[in-house]
């Protein structure tokens, strides 16, 4: 392992929650990114506000792989509480950075790992006054040390600090000092350079570093959503907070300083989705971000929106379930729930973004789908997509876009019709025209979750009931053609398929390359919308073996595939990882190899 690895390694920083390491970690990420090198960060944080262990994992990948890797070349061990665990995660021949203000802790000693001591606390106590500053600057100091160890460009770092603290000269000064402390110490005391090293590239010019919740919030902003209702819940909270921020910037009426949006913090998730249904019914584009527990609580209301045919956009930023589960860990555990949420016969449109770019695009698309099909639409991302920093191509918006409001009759159109009936399938596409309150006396109808016939009248007649509920099913089935098509990548000579969803994409594409290198060729499909279209079935049927890769215990994607495509289980090999971390290529490869060996 002594041949240098340029721009292709991973390191991890172990600290305690609430010590302010976030800004230091962000600084490192941005510096690498500005050097033109592809980089991804995974924040592994506890469900707590202060004191519990927290980690930040940074992967540098020349090839641009963004999946998490469980193998770390270097560990910055700042938290005694996790020394034991942290040191084991360093690969043999790797490095361990520790605070040599105190003697090297016995738990940190590993013969096959080079430990690098830097007196961070000592230096900071000397350089700074006040507890607060000393604690905070210690983080910046390790950033400086890493800069020297890994070969970050100091000018880039200075520019970043300049941009960040342009209005706070004092802070800029102490940050610079702290960087220098770490940097210089390493320069003087550590025999370098390490065999893992950064070298400037030109691979990030057209990219941005962004988290999926921020991107989704942008999608809502651009699609023209005006009403957001929510109840705080990790990991969905930052979606609405980002939306609020964007609205304050772009949605304030210049002259009056009044808002072209309304954000309602509801008392709980039942109320949040109720507000979305009310707002959509009245004609606004409305949405609510939540996570698993919220979806469970919204179940009754979801059935109402489905049966009364009211649009609603619901973001499920999935976390590890069931119940409260691990709120700060990721999972894909709500695939089944969202597809069939609520009692009785129901089926819902779902979109599955794989990264912040699709979070942006699908967020915008979800409003068109919800209004066109007059039904709830779920956008299922997860904690990894929603809260971690991903490198994605710059976002673009087509200014020609206009909202697809679906069949909403105007006062003029209503003049045309003799009498308006809400649930008539006039066009034979399963979609009946709706009207908005306040438009015209002729548009009035009665919305209800109880039995109704195609005229919108209350009914307890079986045939009338069946006619409506069957049309709704046809309508949802048609949506299969409107949701984003699967991403398919064929490999020459491949007999088997790899099928996945959402955030597993990053791990799968990397695994595909590695397997190909080993001579295992696989065709690839990532589903992006539900109900599945014909092309999904086509791909599955074209392969005797399809490995279904997902992040949940019960193989929920595989379940959806079985139910909706009828492809027999023999052709569907389940590959799962659900421990709460983002999926890695190693999980995918190990899973597939295990299956292949069983078969062999």
């Amino acid at each position, binding site marked *: 392992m002594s041949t240098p690895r340029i721009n292709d390694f991973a390191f991890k920083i172990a600290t305690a929650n609430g010590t302010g390491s976030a800004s230091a970690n962000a600084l490192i990420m941005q510096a690498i990114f500005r050097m033109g090198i592809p980089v991804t960060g995974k924040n592994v944080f506890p469900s707590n506000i202060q004191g519990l262990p927290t980690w930040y994992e940074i992967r540098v990948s020349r090839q641009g792989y963004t999946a998490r890797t469980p193998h770390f070349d270097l560990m910055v061990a700042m938290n005694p509480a996790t020394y034991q665990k942290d040191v084991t995660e360093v690969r043999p021949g790797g490095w361990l950075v520790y605070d040599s203000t105190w003697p090297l802790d016995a738990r940190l000693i590993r013969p096959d790992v080079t430990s690098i001591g830097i007196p961070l606390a000592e230096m900071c106590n000397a350089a700074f006054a006040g507890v607060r500053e000393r604690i905070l600057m210690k983080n910046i100091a390790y950033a400086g040390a890493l800069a020297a160890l890994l070969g970050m460009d100091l000018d880039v770092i200075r520019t970043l600090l300049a941009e960040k603290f342009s209005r706070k000269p004092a802070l800029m000064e102490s940050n610079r000092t702290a960087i220098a402390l770490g940097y210089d110490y390493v320069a003087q005391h550590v025999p370098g350079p390490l065999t893992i090293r950064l070298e400037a590239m030109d691979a990030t010019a057209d990219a941005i570093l962004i988290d999926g919740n921020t991107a989704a919030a942008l999608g809502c902003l651009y699609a023209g959503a005006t009403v957001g209702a929510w109840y705080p819940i990790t990991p969905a909270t930052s979606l609405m907070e980002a939306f609020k921020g964007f609205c304050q910037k772009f949605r304030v009426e210049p002259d009056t300083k009044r808002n072209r949006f309304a954000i309602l913090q509801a008392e709980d998730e039942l109320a949040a989705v109720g507000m979305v249904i009310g707002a959509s019914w009245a*004609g606004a584009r409305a949405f609510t971000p939540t996570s698993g527990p919220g979806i469970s609580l919204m179940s009754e209301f979801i059935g109402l929106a489905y049966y009364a045919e009211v649009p609603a956009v619901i973001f499920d930023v999935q976390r590890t379930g069931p119940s409260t589960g691990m709120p700060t860990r990721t999972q894909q555990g709500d695939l089944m729930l969202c597809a069939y949420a609520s009692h009785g016969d129901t089926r819902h449109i779902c979109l599955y973004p794989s990264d912040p770019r699709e979070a942006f695009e699908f967020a915008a698309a979800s409003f068109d789908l919800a209004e066109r099909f007059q039904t709830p639409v779920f956008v299922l991302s997860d904690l990894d997509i929603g809260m971690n920093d991903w490198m994605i191509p710059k976002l673009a918006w087509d*200014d020609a876009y206009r909202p697809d409001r679906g069949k909403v009759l105007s006062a003029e159109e209503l003049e045309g019709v003799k009498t308006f009936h809400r649930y008539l399938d006039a066009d034979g596409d399963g979609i009946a025209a709706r009207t908005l309150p306040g438009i015209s006396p002729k548009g009035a109808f009665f919305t209800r979750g109880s039995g109704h016939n195609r005229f919108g009248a209350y009914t307890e007649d079986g045939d009338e009931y069946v006619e409506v509920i069957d049309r709704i099913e046809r309508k949802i089935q048609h949506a299969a053609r409107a949701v984003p098509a699967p991403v398919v990548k064929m490999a020459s000579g491949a007999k088997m398929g790899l099928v996945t969803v959402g955030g597993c994409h990053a791990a799968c594409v990397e695994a595909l390359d590695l397997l190909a290198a080993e001579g295992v060729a696989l065709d690839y499909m990532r589903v992006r919308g539900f109900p599945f279209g014909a092309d999904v079935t086509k791909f599955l049927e074209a392969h005797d073996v399809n490995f279904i890769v997902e992040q949940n215990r019960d193989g929920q994607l595989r379940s959806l595939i079985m139910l909706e495509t009828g492809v027999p289980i023999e052709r569907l090999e389940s590959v799962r990882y659900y421990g709460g971390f983002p999926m890695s290529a190693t999980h995918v490869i190990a899973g597939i190899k295990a299956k292949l060996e069983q078969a062999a």
Partner: protein
Amino acid sequence: MTYITKPRAHHPALQKNAIGLTRRDYEGAITTLCAGCGHDSITAAIIQAFWDLSIPPHKVAKLSGIGCSSKTPAYFLREAHGFNSVHGRMPSIVAGANAANRDIMYIGVSGDGDSLSIGLGQLCHAIRRNVNVLYVLENNGVYGLTKGQFSASADPGSLSKRGEANTMDAIDGCLLALTLGATFVARGFSGDKAQLVPLIKAGLSHKGFAFIDVISPCVTFNDHDGSTKSYGYTREHNVEVVQADFVPPASAITTEYDPGTVRSVLLHDGSWVRLRKLAGDYDPTDRDGSYQYIREHQKAGEVVTGLLYLSPDSSDLHDQANTVAAPLTQVPFEALCPGNDELQRLQKRFR
């Protein structure tokens, strides 16, 4: 057959209001409630109030939860959009609808089970939010539609049809609303249309959450002695507090009203409510006074009706959200979408 509407032939005798509509134009489908149900009387009062105010029916949205009471929006304002939602969750739907389109006049109809049992949390928070809606709680102390179980407003000690006694204290919606800082709190009685109609009109003109608790006997399950929600009981024990005669903005003539001791309060839509004090020194703008007054009579086994509290200043959901004057549903897309150039500028932040 539930929703056959009545023959609409306009009897010439039917008087027209300021916008040329007759009471008939404010009616809905034929009721499917029990003959003599208090809820039907309230429906009649609602129809009267809207007609008096000459409100175009299609500018109104009528919402409800689930229950006999919650069925009633089908029985008035045929030309208004209706939403019979799910049990106890109508307040959140009204809040969302109102946030989206502030130009619609909202009326929410609910029952004591719908509002004080399953829906208690949503009701309380809609009050806090001061959503601009007239909220009519048709209060009969039982779950009518599920055949007479006690609701949270059932009186302690009162007997159910099955002969069991209720052991818990009743929740008094008006005391609750006052405690939560409601800006309009009133109580009526379904059998007393003369008092109820002005209350409804005042509530409709109030900017913010107008809460009216209407005692509405369930003839089938709760119109018996031992229940304060029976016709007999309420007629005996109802102590009128404040009579609200509403003067529509259209006309300023007030002379036709009997003067007596009168106090006027300016409503936010610019119209006046003239309050006639019946109970000596009753001051409907004194929140704590109202609370005490209700409590005192409650202890004496009396139900106070009338306009109990009216906040002289009320900032509703939109004031708090500082939204634009136009309904959000009418803001053009161009004013909502920042466009691609802004997006490119913005993304510098993410590098």
